[in-house]
């Protein structure tokens, strides 16, 4: 089957494929829906005016000052769709929400990361996020607040900001976003296949790994949410692939995980400064690079040279099973094992490629100096992809034979309990024997988060008319039962 290039799809929201690099300022408005009829009317107006950007909209385009995209949480969809929200069809992590108690444990959202302490999304779930990207913060914010108002049936409960650095550096100073999954059938995938087969092998995933409505790594369609056909009188949506009497709300949509991650940059550099002996390779910069698992400029740490855009992803760690180059427990190796999950490299790579996420992070910097990432990632299943990476790999203290340590960057250190010792170290394999970084503090704290669903454009059109469809249904029966009035 020929793979089609989805990158110009008019049905996929723009942020999925584009980083909007020219619009380097962003405002994220987390909202609750206060009046679903007014909200649907506003949403329809937005769609009619082409104010929700799609992948088809040419980017970068001169003169464009603002782009917007929108996503909803489970309570948001429930409010908006009422009986059209069928919980069964959604990814169950999404349906349960990011703050449900069993998720806290596997995500490491405990102690300092406890949702009770979050700035947003922790105590009261948000209904959704409107993302506004612009050339200046003022434009981004103004557009957002004009949209999320009482007349439009929404209450903007929290606004947070993000921006891109010209050289793509995250607050610790590392080049970020170096390794991303690439969707099969896109021009980028073809380019990699022909010119960088090694990078292609570890990067290309079928569209269904990241977008609903296309086959995934198993050759089947990923699970997709359903909605009631009765609320879709105009046939905006396709039939659902499993429940044929229902409609497919998921096509061209994707799950969006949003986490605001504060980075304690001073603590991070103070720690490596204090810990490095300065002898040979044991420098602050090198220890930091070992924890991250990449060079500060994005260089891959596998054997060989991987220091240019062409080469910094063309490796798979099979030459570095012991982690002498890139430590087994480092942040990037936990998050993306490439081909060394298990003994068999081929199966390993398959396993890894079933757990990729597409990231779209921006940086925040508050007036009080707090800084970090507005972490966003897209995946076809939150349980199978984001949560799996976060729990089975990053926060697993028994990851690949390690002990007493979690991801040194985004993991949650734990005090000893129930016979399990303190989890607070980081091992750097080295010859003749390992280097250990002890008493590692927590360098990243979660400040907010939500599990969201970012619908395709047709699904948004459907969502903008369900109140009218409901009313039409009700009226039809009222008319029949009471012909006199």
């Amino acid at each position, binding site marked *: 089957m020929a793979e089609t290039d989805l990158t110009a799809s008019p049905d996929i929201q723009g942020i999925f494929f584009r980083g909007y690099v020219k619009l380097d300022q962003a405002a994220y408005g987390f909202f609750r829906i206060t009046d679903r009829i007014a909200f649907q009317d506003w949403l329809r107006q937005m769609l009619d005016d082409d104010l929700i950007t799609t992948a088809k909209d040419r980017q970068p385009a001169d003169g464009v000052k603002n782009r917007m995209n929108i996503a909803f949480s489970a309570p948001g969809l429930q409010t908006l769709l009422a009986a059209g929200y069928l919980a069964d069809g959604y990814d169950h992590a999404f349906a349960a929400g990011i703050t449900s108690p*069993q998720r806290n444990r*596997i995500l490491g959202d405990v102690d300092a990361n406890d949702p009770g302490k979050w700035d947003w999304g922790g105590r009261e779930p948000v209904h959704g996020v409107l993302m506004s990207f612009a050339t200046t913060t003022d434009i981004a914010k103004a557009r957002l607040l004009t949209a999320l108002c009482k007349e439009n049936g929404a209450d903007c409960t929290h606004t947070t900001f993000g921006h891109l650095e010209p050289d793509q550096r995250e607050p610790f100073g590392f080049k970020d976003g170096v390794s991303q999954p690439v969707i099969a059938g896109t021009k980028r995938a073809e380019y990699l296949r022909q010119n960088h087969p090694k990078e292609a092998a570890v990067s290309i995933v079928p569209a269904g790994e990241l977008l609903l409505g296309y086959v995934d790594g198993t050759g089947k369609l990923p699970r997709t949410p359903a909605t009631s056909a009765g609320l879709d009188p105009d046939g905006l949506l396709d039939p659902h692939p499993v429940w044929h009497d229902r409609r497919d709300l998921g096509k061209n949509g994707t799950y969006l995980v949003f986490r605001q991650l504060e980075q304690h940059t001073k603590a991070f550099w103070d720690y490596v400064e204090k810990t490095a002996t300065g002898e040979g390779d*044991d420098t602050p910069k090198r220890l930091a690079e070992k924890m991250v698992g990449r060079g500060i400029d994005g260089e891959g740490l596998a054997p060989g040279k991987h220091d240019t855009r062409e080469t910094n992803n063309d490796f798979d760690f099979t030459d570095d099973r012991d982690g002498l180059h890139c430590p087994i427990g480092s942040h990037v190796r936990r998050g993306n094992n490439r081909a060394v999950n298990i003994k068999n490299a081929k*199966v390993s790579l398959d396993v890894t490629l079933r757990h990729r996420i597409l990231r779209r992070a921006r940086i925040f910097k508050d007036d009080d100096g707090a800084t970090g990432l507005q972490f966003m990632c897209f995946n076809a299943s939150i349980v199978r992809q984001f949560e*799996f990476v976060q729990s*089975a790999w990053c926060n697993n203290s028994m990851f690949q034979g390690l002990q007493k340590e979690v991801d040194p960057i985004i993991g949650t250190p734990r005090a000893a309990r129930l*016979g399990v010792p303190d989890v607070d170290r980081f091992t750097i394999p080295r010859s003749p024997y*390992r280097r250990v970084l002890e008493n590692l503090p927590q360098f990243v704290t979660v400040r907010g988060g939500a599990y969201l669903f970012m619908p395709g454009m047709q699904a948004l059109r459907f969502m903008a008319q369900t109140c009218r469809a409901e009313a039409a249904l009700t009226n039809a029966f009222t008319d029949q039962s009471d012909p006199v009035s």
Partner: protein
Amino acid sequence: MHNKFTIVAPILTGHHATVQDMLKPFGTICPDTTPDSFGFAQIDTLHFASLCIFNDVQDGWSLLFEHNIDGQIEDHIDNLIAVAEALDGGAFLLELYNHCAGFDGQTLAALRTYLLQHVIKPQAGFISAVGMSRDQIRLDARVYDVVDATLGAAGQPLAPGTAQAQVLDALNADTSVADWHSFPDPGIDLGLLGKLGAVLSLLGNAIGFLVLAIINLPRERAADQERARPDIDFQLSLAENEDIIPTNHMLSVVYVHTDAGRQLAKRAAFGLLRTLVTLVFRKGFLGEIDTIHFAHWSFCNDNRRLIFVSNYDGSWRSYLDDFTLKASNGLNLAWGHSVGYPKTWAMLKGGASNGPQFIDFARRSMFPTLVWYSAYPSVSATNIGRNRKLRAALIKARSGSTDTSWLELV
């Protein structure tokens, strides 16, 4: 030598809620937790244990008590009883089993007989630490900790010879590992007779299995699959006792098809698994999976139900992902011909490779673990294998070996 088994006792009608109330407060038990009413930590033959209740459409509720032990079953039950007697005169255990049908005894001697009568030995199972007793696993872990502490942060590494000398000194000085060089390791060698027996059994089971697989094919392809997703509250009830420590426990009880053809095929498939495990999977890996401490399958309720219990490292989700991505054929051999199982071909293809459907099937078949005990929560199955190698190498170093490559194991 290890044994793994379950004791399945029918609960008196109407008593299951009381049994659940008695057990649920225990949750996860480790050697360091405050002493529990079972005295698990004092039973020195015990690796992992669990208790839970499950219900059956015909037989009602049963109490399931899982044991993974060193040595003989009878000796272990004696230990269990002796520890209970020392703790509270056996009052707790007696009270628990007084809620079970067919036990009206007031004495621990009667309880011992009752427990032994209800022992179910598994059809097949897997143990990663082949041959290792609980005490060896713990000793090896302490040896690792001493070595790790001696090497320290190692900002500047010592010369390998110096490091080795320091480590040996530290081990000799540490009274908590006094027997580090003398405690025997039984090794993993099966022996010629063992191998021969396993090969013969493998052949026999394989032939039987193939014949039955063909005979059963029409029924296998016509069997109904269940696609329902586990509901959110049910998932919550399971998750309540998961991810408390990095190692986890799962209990699943499925219905199996009871016609003779498929029952026999299941026996042959388990025979295959049993001999494969004995012959091939002796080095801590079950195929590509290296996170399982003890796991086993057994029949109960007149062979209508199949119990699966497992003690594994990491989260449930990653365990099941391993099953579907790395071991679907083996899982089909064990779980094929279960009612509602994803469609298989000859108990090998399909089935567990159908990721989401299989994972939902497995989740729906589970019952919450009420009590779970791990004798060594600090070490993963992988750590246990590493520690074993480390102590063996250090024993060589002690007797004069200058090979310091063991340093890479730490």
